């Protein structure tokens, strides 16, 4: 899908835009717990651009994977996910590192996210009589509960950005205010939501989603139209820089392999 907004380099896709925007949020000398797909690509781009000491962790039990360009894993538990890794341990152990506080970032996608950052990957409809039974939490609930800062990356569509999720698979700020801490989730905070239209965060008092910056060529009205709830808007909306040629080349080489990028 070609990225929306007219300020993009030619041919940039929504996926590329999201992954590159998200990659810029990851600081050097940190540890990121990434899922497969966009979170993993974003982390790998960051390592190759500005954060060479970023350690990528995957829930299959992998610490410090480097990835083989063009052979990206489909699952976090397969051999391709471990290419060049420094350590392989078991799954439970990996999550316990998160609980201990070693993982600076947890990186998630979302089928459905609401104004308080709660994520649903379990059911459309009710849990008793689901209209659609989705795969389930996997490690998402643990990542959002245990990592130090959580980043969410997803396409900006009204069906994904809903006022309230049908089912809280992975708790964000629950009903806002201090409800997350009240529920016993005393560790971790939601840092940012990255989309193909914008960069958002959560207003500190209400814990409601707030627009911080726009992707190139995207308007505030466009973001509002694509959000299924009333969005808070920062007083000083910034503009995100477009992907650089270097970032795009690195992303495409990772995805397609060295031959495809040549």
């Amino acid at each position: 899908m070609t990225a929306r907004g007219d300020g993009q380099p030619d041919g940039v896709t929504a996926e590329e835009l999201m992954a590159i925007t998200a990659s810029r949020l990851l600081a050097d000398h940190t540890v990121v717990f990434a899922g497969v797909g966009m979170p993993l690509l974003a982390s790998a781009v960051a390592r190759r651009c500005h954060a060479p000491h970023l350690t990528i962790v995957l829930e299959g039990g992998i610490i410090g994977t480097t990835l083989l360009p063009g052979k990206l894993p489909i699952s976090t538990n397969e051999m391709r996910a471990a290419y060049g890794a420094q350590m392989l341990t078991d799954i439970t152990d990996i999550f316990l590192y998160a609980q201990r506080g070693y993982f600076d970032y947890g990186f998630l996608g979302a089928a459905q996210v609401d104004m308080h950052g709660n994520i649903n990957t379990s059911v459309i409809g009710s849990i008793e009589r689901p209209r659609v039974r989705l795969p389930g939490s996997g490690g998402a609930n643990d990542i959002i509960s245990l990592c130090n800062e959580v980043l969410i990356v997803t396409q900006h569509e009204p069906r994904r950005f809903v006022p309230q999720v049908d089912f809280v698979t992975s708790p964000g700020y629950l009903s806002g205010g201090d409800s997350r801490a009240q529920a016993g989730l005393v560790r971790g905070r939601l840092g940012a939501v990255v989309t193909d239209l914008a960069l958002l965060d959560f207003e500190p008092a209400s814990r409601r989603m707030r627009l911080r910056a726009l992707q190139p060529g995207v308007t505030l009205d466009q973001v509002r139209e694509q959000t299924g709830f009333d969005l808070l808007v920062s007083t000083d909306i910034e503009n995100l820089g477009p992907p650089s040629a270097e970032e795009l080349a690195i992303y495409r080489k990772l995805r397609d392999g060295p031959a495809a990028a040549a």
Partner: protein
Amino acid sequence: MEHVAVLAARAEREAAGRPVADKRMTAEAAMALIRDGDHVAIGGTLYSRTPMMLVFALLRQRRRHLTVSRPLACYEIELFLATGALDRIVTSWVGIGLPWGLAPIFRHYVERGEASYDEWSHLAMGLRYKAGAMGVPFLPSLTMLGSDLARTLDLQTVTCPYTGERLAALPALNPDVALIHAHRADMFGNVQVDGYRHMDADIAKAARTVIVSAERIVGPEDIAASPAQTMLPHFAVDAVVAAPYGAYPHECYGLYGPDLEHFDAYVGAVREHGPAAGLRYVEENVDAHPDFAGFVAAAGAARLAALEAAASELMLR
């Protein structure tokens, strides 16, 4: 949700013998250890080191009213559903992977209420097996709190007697039977794996009966040559099954990659024909062959060689 009687589980383990004996048997013979209504835990994760030879042997039996638990469940869950063997799934995720979309047979049964799905978080599954493996009734954790998962499962919390902090109390999971696939085992059941360990050691130690399949049966001297690779000691294993390509069409770390084309064909058939395609898959890939070796041979030497090459390419040596 049933809760383990931890003292009963411990008493049963105490009373069981620990003979250092030749535990080798065929997959078919090992299936006699599984009864209708059992909770069977399947080792590996998603499509990595799944004990497919043992799974196929169990599918052939057409057992009824099974509960199956796994760290992440792949399409083997759909095969148990489609053959009428499965009442209840206990896991954190069901599918094959993003490219194949939602699992249609799984959806069919769960959305109609014909099978139940107890959805826990991934760490919760790990800690539930670990509690079972440790011989304690629960483990505390900071995960799952505040979620609808916790509400649906009626997950209880505990207050720390030292600090007053509130934690989730994840109940022990002690399966009736564990199915585990490994790289090597000796005849006594000393089991070694390479690469990922998934949740296999805890699943096995939590279970009441443990069946291990292994790519190679080796001598005790081979086990002793690399004892740090040993994942399970002989006294935690009840049956050992020789299983070359025993995880195929899933992957086995360092030996062969996953057969993604096989997954494509399966998902294509299910999309076209619905749940009936699951039963047909079992008839054609399980029932039609005299044993698992027949199913593997049907893949063809060229495809197996390609999967071995794919695995080899990923090993830095």
